[in-house]
């Protein structure tokens, strides 16, 4: 669902992934991206809520923004996606 929303709402698409112990990190770039691997890409942070209210979604977004905020110094942009599966509702926000 997140990947579809990214395609609808931005000019970006998932172009690369990298491995981390719990699964994969996803990296976004322009469609047809031919840059060197991971150069000028946007990191995608996805988090899900099984069922919750709008305020739950906002609260989760604040938590994720605080976590990703640690990367401000590195200059790597990120998009945070909170997906609530009950309604369903989604919220995407640039870091």
């Amino acid at each position, binding site marked *: 669902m997140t990947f579809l929303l990214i395609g609808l709402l931005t000019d970006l698409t998932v172009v690369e992934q990298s491995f981390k112990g719990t699964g994969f990190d996803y990296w976004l770039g322009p469609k047809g991206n031919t840059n060197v*691997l991971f150069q000028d890409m946007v990191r995608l942070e996805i988090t899900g*809520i099984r069922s919750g209210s709008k305020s739950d979604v906002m609260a989760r977004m604040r938590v994720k923004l605080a976590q990703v905020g*640690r990367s401000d110094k590195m200059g790597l942009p990120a998009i945070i996606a909170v997906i609530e599966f009950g309604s369903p509702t989604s919220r995407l926000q640039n870091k």
Partner: protein
Amino acid sequence: MNEDATTTTLHREAMNLAEQGYVAKLRGQHGRYLELLGLAFDKERAAAELVAAQDALEPTRSILHRSAASLAIECGRLRDAEKLIAAALAGEPPDEIAEELRILFEKTVFQQALHRKGIVLAPVEVHVSITGQAVDYGLTESGVFLDRVQDIERLVFRTAERQQNVPFRERGKPSKLLGGLGLYLTAPQASSFAISFRIGAQLGFHGLDPNQDIMRELLDCLELFNGGHEGGLRERIREEAYYLNFVSLARNVSPDGDDIRAVRFATLDDGHERSILLSRYRREIPAALLRSGLTQAESEQVMTLEGTLRFADGLKRKDLVGLRDSEGHVHKIIVPPGLLDDIVQPLWDSRVSVTAVIRGKSLHLRDISKTAEP
């Protein structure tokens, strides 16, 4: 093909293999998972080595090293992971990736420590979550959570000992036959409040498989308990002390009402999602499930006492405890097999409510629970 294209090709092949590995893991094919991750690691390391000399090529350089190191840890190649992490940190990784590399390094140190003790963690995690008024998103009162974790750990040890045909241990530490058996917890997760745990055991572990023989058995018994299937549970846990111990611990883990309304266990069993929702409150658990099958008779009188649980000083019998009521009287209560160490002892010096069966001049413990201080 130029170097950039080769790096990209190797990396994408590695990620394809890793994805296939994850599918195998979800299907419960752990051997296949490790095999595919090993292949993915070889390619990802090759991709990382191609950019290793280009310190300015960030974040590419550090992301590839971190990704290769993560794969190495997953498939047990800890020394390779260490080298990749060191190489990445020796460059100029962005702050966030550097922090992730340090966390990975801590993970390799932990895994190596387990390796030195000959301990291997079972590949499958069991996810435990609690919900209720005492739980917020990623936050909970410590007592409702920690008490349950301790009782789950007791359930794991008792199940392992039972599966090893060890006679019930009324006192003391777990059997030496269990070797390095232990419960390993992941960091608490948000989403109500949740942790995952894995069983660690020494290689070989006397022929027992921590997943098959301990975790599956424990979940099977919890399922029978949750459904109130006394017969099925007694069929499974034949020794009375083990039975009483199990049902009493399972009741402690169960929801207590408003504070904790549900406790959920979830895991992958042979690739199939398995979930057990304990939603029956402690007070609703049928008394028949909790009583001793050896001693209970319908005609026996039952009484309830409140007071502070004390050591039964000066008493020769090891199965006797003392309950001091509000008037200072000490009631001596006989504890049935299976309950002293795990159920009664954690309540020493606490205010408790005791239900006891009167048999002749003796009181025999049937049920005990903590109550609020007056």
